[in-house]
């Protein structure tokens, strides 16, 4: 399978800007011909997905050149990318669930008999044969909806291969998969690699990078830090390359923490999410909770807030038994939650700032007749707008017209209006510009110091957690595996990242 070019893909000097941020900064990226298993790693926002999106024609680059099989493009379309043999397999499915595997493979391209009717015999036979050549034994008449997620991904990869893809990009393919499914997927991928297919494997799971890949490319802040053979790196080195060094931005003043504990979690377990969680939260304390996607930190927070089931175990809030049946329940007890999915669960875009902020406490803003008091509402809302420095011409402005940072502040204002005892923040600075990030961290700090609110900050930005938290807990596959205290010299980004990846530091 000799290719005429040494490199199948060469991206040279690719730059990509989005409003307010430079996602890719003169990036070079090369894939050799003949097949490779290349890992692509980096923190959130480092540019991994953006780079691949440029390669597959989803985004046109602002500068630079893409050369595929010797042909040069300054910008590509998605169909060109497909024609040149580059295929992107996303996390969400591009298959049609009620139809069979075979029909999905041949979708839009069904073979017909001389009469022009669909030749189902051929459809099944060819699909079975082609999948067989890929090493797959599966009944092609089965409906896709009956397949597991791993199987669906394998079929999607197969589909791409049938369209003569030479480079297949897998983006966070294993996030929703249990272990044995990951093995299944990897066996399939390795099999294809032997046939000369190149896979670009984007993942946060470093141990999988070590298990599957031959080489790894590291992205940081929109730059390609380098390509390394995986065999020449230790986990520690890889982590160091990923995290790099950054300028300090904010420092949380260590509080004299009130020694009263406000939240106690004992042996909390929920099957498939987390296992034997134990923690004690004190008034005014800021505790960071970090870990990879799927480690259970989100389920834990949502469970405490009543958005998900909580599982077995005991939780005490302010000394009393606590279990929220729904968010209203949680809010009444004094526990509030800032959702990770701002647009889905955080803001009501169509409605005004005022309506968003007062929603949880409407019953407190009524007059004697039970009707909402204009005065009480506007007084409260303008106070909060001022306190949180929300930039807006008026409180009647629909929230959808605000910037990301200001939208997040509106959610904060809403939570603040409840005057909670415990605050769970899930990725509070996600999707927010740098200026607003600092402001939000200040808000969190103030809440803990001035209002004595106990705060759990869930974040994958370890640097930010270090600046903000008194303690950091690390979760891995459902359990708390490490705890670090502020002031302890062991509380460094690297150590934490190790714990996050589930690898012990020597």
């Amino acid at each position, binding site marked *: 399978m000799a290719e005429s070019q040494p490199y199948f893909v060469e991206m040279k000097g690719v730059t990509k800007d989005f409003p307010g941020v430079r996602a890719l900064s003169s990036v070079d990226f090369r894939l050799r011909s003949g097949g490779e298993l290349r890992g692509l790693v980096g923190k959130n926002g480092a540019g991994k997905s953006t780079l691949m999106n440029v390669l597959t024609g989803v985004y046109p680059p602002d500068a630079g050149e893409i050369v595929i099989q010797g042909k040069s493009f300054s910008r590509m379309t998605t169909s060109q990318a497909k024609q040149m043999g580059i295929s992107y397999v996303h996390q969400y499915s591009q298959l049609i669930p009620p139809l069979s595997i075979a029909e999905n493979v041949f979708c839009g391209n069904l073979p017909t008999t001389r009469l022009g009717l669909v030749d189902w015999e051929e459809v099944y036979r060819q699909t079975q044969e082609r999948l067989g050549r890929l090493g797959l034994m599966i009944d092609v008449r089965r409906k896709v909806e009956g397949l597991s997620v791993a199987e669906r991904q394998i079929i999607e990869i197969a589909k791409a291969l049938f369209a003569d893809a030479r480079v297949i990009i897998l983006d966070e393919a294993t996030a929703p998969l249990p272990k044995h499914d990951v093995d299944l997927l990897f066996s399939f991928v390795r099999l294809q690699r032997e046939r000369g297919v190149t896979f670009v494997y984007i993942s946060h799971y470093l141990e999988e990078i070590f298990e599957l890949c031959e080489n790894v490319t590291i992205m940081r802040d929109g730059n390609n830090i380098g390509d390394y053979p995986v065999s020449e790196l230790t986990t520690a080195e890889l982590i160091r390359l990923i995290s790099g060094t950054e300028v300090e931005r904010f420092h949380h003043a260590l509080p004299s923490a009130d020694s009263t504990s406000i939240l106690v979690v004992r042996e909390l377990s929920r099957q498939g999410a987390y296992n034997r969680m134990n923690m004690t939260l004190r008034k005014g304390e800021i505790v960071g909770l970090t870990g990879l996607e799927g480690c259970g930190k989100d389920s834990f927070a949502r469970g405490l*807030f009543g*958005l998900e089931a909580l599982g077995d175990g005991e939780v005490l809030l302010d000394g009393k038994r606590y279990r929220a049946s*729904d*968010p*209203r329940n949680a*809010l*009444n007890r004094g526990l509030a*939650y800032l*959702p990770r999915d701002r647009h*889905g*669960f*955080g*803001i*009501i*875009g*169509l*409605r005004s700032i005022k*309506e*968003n902020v*007062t*929603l*949880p406490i*409407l*019953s407190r*803003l*009524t007059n004697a007749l*039970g*009707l*909402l008091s204009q005065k009480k509402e506007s007084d409260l809302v*303008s106070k909060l*707008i*001022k306190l949180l420095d*929300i*930039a*807006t*011409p*008026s*409180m009647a*402005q*629909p929230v*959808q*017209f*605000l*910037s990301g940072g*200001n939208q997040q502040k509106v959610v904060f204002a*809403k939570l603040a209006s*409840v005057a909670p005892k415990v605050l769970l923040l899930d990725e509070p600075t996600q999707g927010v510009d740098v200026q607003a990030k600092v402001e939000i961290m200040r808000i969190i700090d103030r809440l803990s110091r001035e209002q004595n609110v106990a705060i759990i900050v869930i974040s994958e930005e370890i640097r930010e957690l270090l600046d903000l938290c008194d303690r950091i807990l690390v979760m891995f596959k459902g359990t708390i595996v490490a705890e670090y205290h502020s002031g302890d010299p062991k509380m460094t980004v690297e150590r934490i990242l190790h714990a996050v990846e589930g690898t012990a530091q020597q």
Partner: protein
Amino acid sequence: MRANRIVAFILSNLIWFLLVAIVAFFALITRNFLTTANFINILFNASVLGVLVIGQSFTLLTGNFDLSAESTLGLCGLLGIFFITRSGPPLYGSGWMLSPVLSLLIVHAIGLFIGLANGVLITKMRVNNFVVTLAMLITIRGVTLLVNNGQTAYSVSSAYNWLGLGKAGPIPIPVIVFLLLFILGNIIIVSTPFGRELYAIGANRNAALASGVRPEARIIQVYMISGLLAAFAGWMLSARLTNAMSSMGKGMIFEVFAAAVIGGVSLKGGQGSLIGALGGVLLLTTIGAGLNLMNVSVYWIQAIRGLIILIAMIIEAQKMRISTLASAAAPRSKTQVSTG
């Protein structure tokens, strides 16, 4: 800049501008249009539709349809008379001779119960609201046909008929009641926590949930309101006609939607006002009245009504498009709120 503001003002109060334009049009073309008698007549004709629209607006705000309202109107209107009238010709009642008060209590309870059933099926059993209320529409109409074997029931109770035929001076009672209900409904929607929560649920149910709202309870409640008002509208209509055919109300549901949509209540939920819906009701009824005065055939009026509905829907669809484009292009505002 000023032009933009003027356009925005017109668009958000479009229904009233349209209404004024239509009234002017008819006033020019027909004699007798600009009379008090005509306006009262318009309001009179609008009253039953109006009550239904109030109920429908409550459910629409949460993003849900209640297709069954017209059948609830039919059933409750029939039962109201059925309970209080003697059996056999010429009145064809049940013969139970209940007092009007008791009958009306039962009938409204039935309306509430239908709403409860709708609400529970939709929230707890998670069946699509269109499908549930559609099935209810059919089933309840079937029950209505069953009750009196398709026979029309006649009311000779002046107490019962008062709601439809009574007058306070020159103004018919239905008009007064309808306007009162609108005012009450508007107060609830605009000035109570309950109303606020409805908007939140319709605009983003998940975010509402995460903000402490209980969407399922509210949705059940709005369906009960819709059912209750449909029962009331049934009373109104059957009182006005002094009889209840088993087909009473059939086909009305489309006009209800039309009026709501024309008046700016979004079918997706989370937007719109009861005042706007009132405008929609008045617009449709005025057009009907005007065309009538012009001696336009009933069938033309039907067709034109349908056309108006379609145009209203097209406008709503475009409005959605424009507003999504606008939010994407909106400048990120930097000005501060005035302190103090």
